[in-house]
């Protein structure tokens, strides 16, 4: 779409003071935004008062932005949102963003607990925003980014460490010796059942965030990565030698032994994966495995 007039303006400006163009613009923008702020508040009051008489919920949302004056020091903002039956925390956040403050930042996509984007710290527990009904929570609802992870902005945390831990367990099927052509590998129903729960992980990071050990020790693989390794180690389609390789990874210093069976990972996992059970089973596998050579 054409916005030529505006474009020319900026180009001229840039020509006049090439060096300072950016700061000048930024200043101008900041000024405008400040002026706007007062107006925004009025607007906000208007919206809030229009909710009078309706059932509402209050969100207390963590705000932080390293770049924006006033958000550099983290704070909590309150948003009043209209409530309807079936409303989730994510719905409420989206409503607040679209109505009050479009800079409210959080990850979300599927809205159905499958993409793993919106693990948040809601009323003191790690949960998926989209899978948490407001009706289950006490009001006001406190929404924070996942603990023990670096906050990028508002509710967005840096997931890189989580991904690195996942990658550390070689999270891929390694069996090379597969049948030719259209022949599939055979797998018993029981074996599929055994790995079933472990394959449901959506990489949301809730478990890792809830684990005090993972918080204290950055090197600990963490429940999700161990569960991922479990998924392959227990899959009979990968041969014994590969299982051995996987156990070798898990048995390291920062592998399964770090787990202190706190169970918080299992408690928060939105896909109900019995994480502690899987970790414990791997510990026993590792011990058995070593006793064999004794």
């Amino acid at each position, binding site marked *: 779409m054409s916005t030529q007039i505006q474009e020319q303006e900026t180009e001229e400006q840039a020509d006049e003071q090439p060096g300072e163009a950016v700061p000048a613009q930024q200043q101008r923008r900041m000024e405008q935004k400040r002026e706007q702020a007062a107006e925004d508040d009025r607007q906000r009051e208007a919206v809030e008062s229009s909710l009078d008489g309706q059932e509402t919920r209050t969100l207390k949302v963590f705000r932080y932005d390293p770049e924006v004056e006033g958000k550099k020091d983290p704070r909590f903002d309150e948003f009043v949102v209209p409530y309807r039956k079936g409303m989730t925390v994510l719905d409420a956040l989206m409503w607040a963003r679209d109505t009050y403050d479009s800079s409210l930042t959080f990850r979300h996509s599927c809205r159905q607990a499958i993409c793993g984007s919106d693990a948040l710290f809601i009323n003191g527990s790690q949960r998926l925003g989209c899978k948490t009904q407001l009706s289950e929570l006490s009001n006001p609802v406190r929404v924070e980014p996942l603990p023990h992870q670096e906050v990028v902005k508002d509710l967005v945390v840096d997931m890189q460490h989580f991904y690195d831990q996942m990658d550390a367990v070689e999270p891929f099927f390694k069996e090379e010796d597969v049948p030719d052509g259209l022949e599939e590998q055979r797998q018993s129903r029981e074996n599929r059942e055994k790995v079933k729960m472990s394959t449901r992980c959506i990489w949301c990071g809730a478990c890792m965030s809830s684990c005090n050990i993972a918080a204290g020790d950055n090197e600990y693989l963490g429940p999700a990565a161990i569960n991922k390794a479990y998924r392959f180690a227990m899959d009979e389609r990968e041969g014994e030698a590969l299982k051995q390789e996987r156990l070798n990874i898990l048995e390291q210093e920062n592998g399964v032994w770090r787990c202190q069976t706190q169970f*918080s990972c*299992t408690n928060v996992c939105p896909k109900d994966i019995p994480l502690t059970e899987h970790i414990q089973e791997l510990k026993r596998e590792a011990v058995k495995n070593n006793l064999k050579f004794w």
Partner: protein
Amino acid sequence: MSQSYDRGLVEDFGRWRDFSAGMWAWVFHKFTGWVLIGYLFTHIAVLSTAIPAAGGTGGIYTTTLQGLEELVIVRILEVGLLAVAVFHILNGVRLLFVDLGVGLTAQDKSFYASLVLTGAIVVASVPTFLTGAF
């Protein structure tokens, strides 16, 4: 993990309120474990009075121990020690079961059970422990 600012400042509630059973069990087990090992060191130190006593009639040893036992505070600490030890044992047993993969789904209940049992045992032994202390 490092944080570019202190998140604690903006958190108007302590996280501990939100701890679940498994986390409390972990915290208590840790605490009791440390108390026990600490006690083991002091215990051996106190008992060391047995060495000079070995030659004679054991006067120093007996007086030290009985002297300590006369102090109310020591008696109370002893009850505390019992509580700590009993909890550590019971929860230790719970953890051993968890390690064996038994009763994982009841882990929170078994933790509460350890707490309750600890309480009961401690209360039951108070008379024995405090006999003659006052």
